[in-house]
């Protein structure tokens, strides 16, 4: 139903798929620039962005260019989307112009499924509404495997993250990053603790799958944490939800003090954009536990592999890299 190489949800990925992506990521990273630039030379990739983005857009674009592909960026602000053109027609137009793969960011959950169905092209979900951000979960996995002691970042198995407890804290309800991670990490052996106040973390979150717990008390969750992933409060999606930010900071901010008291060795992640002083203290973001910048550079590497996968019909893992 969806073109091979599409990545719409982490649910599409088997552990073997994840493993292949990690392996190719590592091989691509070690390749000489000139060799890498031949891999997708002459191929056309469209970036279709209906929402603003810094990290995801730039990393996908740089990844595509480093593989030699031609990219074009279409955003809702400067295209016929403003005139009312539908997602389907926008996709068909890009396809007619020769796009072989579309990277889509969209404020509506599920939009990448529409685009993939209507165009038949491989579509990479670069974040859809409150639903998923699969490439983020993959780069987070890679970051964890690189940073946690004794792990292998070149492959994945159902035990890759065995014994690892990952605390995801904050605005879970509106977070596509939380959903993708909560669905992927347990399949690699991790335990995921979701943490936040009820309005931002309904009990329905437990339905995401096995290996997930809801813990309301952040300190309690932190004491079990090997990894702590902080999320921004998504003001643009609160939709009338009232939140006492001062109280939120007291209960859920990752401050240096809180980290030192409860999880001095935990790896700190944040998918960005982060609001220093709200969900995370600046000293933590810049501190020794933080892998936030490494996440960003892993984004570039993992997304290169995803593009190669999208455009190599069959035998992606055997691509000579």
């Amino acid at each position, binding site marked *: 139903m969806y073109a091979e190489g599409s990545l719409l949800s982490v649910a599409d990925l088997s552990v073997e798929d994840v493993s292949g992506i990690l392996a190719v990521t590592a091989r691509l990273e070690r390749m000489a620039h000139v060799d890498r630039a031949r891999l997708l030379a002459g191929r056309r990739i469209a970036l279709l962005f209906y929402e603003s983005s810094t990290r995801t857009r730039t990393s996908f674009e740089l990844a595509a260019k480093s593989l030699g592909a031609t990219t074009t960026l279409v955003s809702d602000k400067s295209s016929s989307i403003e005139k009312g053109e539908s997602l389907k027609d926008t996709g068909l137009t890009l396809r007619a112009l020769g796009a072989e793969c579309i990277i889509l960011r969209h404020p509506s959950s599920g939009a990448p499924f529409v685009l993939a169905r*209507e165009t038949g092209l491989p579509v990479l979900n670069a974040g859809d509404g409150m*639903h998923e951000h699969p490439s983020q979960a993959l780069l987070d996995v890679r970051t964890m495997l690189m940073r946690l002691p004794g792990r292998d970042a070149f492959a994945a198995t159902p035990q890759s993250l065995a014994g690892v407890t990952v605390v995801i804290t904050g605005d879970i309800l509106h977070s596509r990053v939380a959903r993708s991670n909560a669905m992927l990490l347990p399949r690699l052996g991790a335990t995921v603790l979701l943490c936040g106040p009820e309005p931002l973390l309904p009990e*329905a979150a437990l339905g995401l799958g096995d290996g997930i717990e809801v813990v309301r008390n952040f300190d309690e969750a932190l004491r079990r944490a090997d990894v702590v992933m902080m999320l921004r409060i998504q003001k643009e999606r609160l939709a009338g939800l009232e939140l006492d930010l001062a109280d939120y900071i007291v209960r859920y901010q990752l401050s240096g003090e809180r980290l030192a008291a409860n999880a001095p060795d935990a790896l700190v992640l944040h998918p960005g954009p982060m609001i220093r002083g709200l969900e995370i203290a600046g000293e933590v973001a810049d501190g020794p536990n933080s892998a936030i910048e490494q996440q960003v550079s892993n984004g570039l590497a993992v997304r290169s592999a995803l593009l190669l996968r999208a455009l190599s019909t069959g035998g992606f893992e055997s691509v000579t890299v």
Partner: protein
Amino acid sequence: MSDLLILHGRVVDPTIGIDEARDLLLRDGKIAAVESPGVLKNIEAAETIDASGLVVAPGLVDVHVHLREPGQTYKETIATGTAAAAAGGFTSVVAMPNTLPVNDSVAGMEWMLSPKRGAVVKLFAMPAATMGSMGATLTDFAALHKAGAVGFTDDGKPVLEDAMMRDALIAAARLGVPVSQHAEDTHLTGGCSMNAGPVAFRLGLRGMTVEAESRIVERDIRLLREIESAEGLRPHLHVQHVSTGRALEAIREAKRQGLHVTCEAAPHHFTLTDEAIGDYDTNAKMNPPLRAEADRQAVLAGLADGTVDCIATDHAPHAAHEKEQEFERAPNGITGLETALGLALRVLHKGQGLSLSRIISLMSAAPAGIVSLAGRGSLRVGSFADVVVFDAGAEWRFDAKDSRSKSKNTPFDGAAMLGRVKATISEGRVVFRR
């Protein structure tokens, strides 16, 4: 009009307590005779239908359809929608008022009910309760009733203001017709596109809670009680497409207390759950939304114990381009006229063990009674010759592209059906034959 004989069938009509072999004579648009096999053998009819091995029942009645005319004829017209009705075994349908313009005037009623619209089966209309369904000013109930209104509704938009709903119930009670309410507290459903719960959470979609439905039902029931005691009137509330156990519990209790509440259930709500949305299938998007399994079970229980009075389709056609969109942007609604009987027999008869007679009642006499369609929903001699002939044991799959409706927005494309319509007769005319 010439005579029509329907011979050798199994006549199932709960209104006259029959479930056995009978022959039917239809004459001048009315049921002229229902007789034991052989009695009618000397009648020379212009046309004879051999119903051997088939069920012969009162034509089905749907109190909740959207025919989109005037204003949205690219989705459906009265002619195509009623053709779909005929193919589904329906002989009477009640058109909702959310057309463009809204059906809130006598002129609108007359236009809609005019023979020029080409309705294939008997068309009734339920006009708006408030002008433009805006909730601010009551329509002219008396004049609209004279023009044929079988009830009043702002369907799609609930009447939210207590005072407005009270006035509507009182005005309708004086005319002896129901106010039909789409029960949704829209203060609680802003931005929502499906049922609240684990599936909505996983899909990242905002969900409508069961309370958004039950609160309005409970409020309306409270108004009924207040009006009964203060005004000495007996208002009739009809709850549309009830989808939650909580709303059904309120209705069950209100009935126990003797209040005049009726409700309908839609085939999609007793057949599917919100899991059917799958990969954001907009053909599984409607309002009220597909619910959790516990609510589906509650609807089944309500159908079994009589809390649910009738089945109604909420047939809501939309064009392909409207459904080929982001889930949150796609309009609510699915077609339903051609799949209702096949689902009712599969899910309720075969699945839940409800008798054929009970299902026929839920789809003919009961809905006809709710909107007081005199002479419909029964094969009693003298009634309108509205008849459906179907093969109750036929197993088949629905193919949306064969639909008579202009629109193909159904989650039941390819779905298994039990029971297939062979002929539909509206006031003595054969309007569908397979």
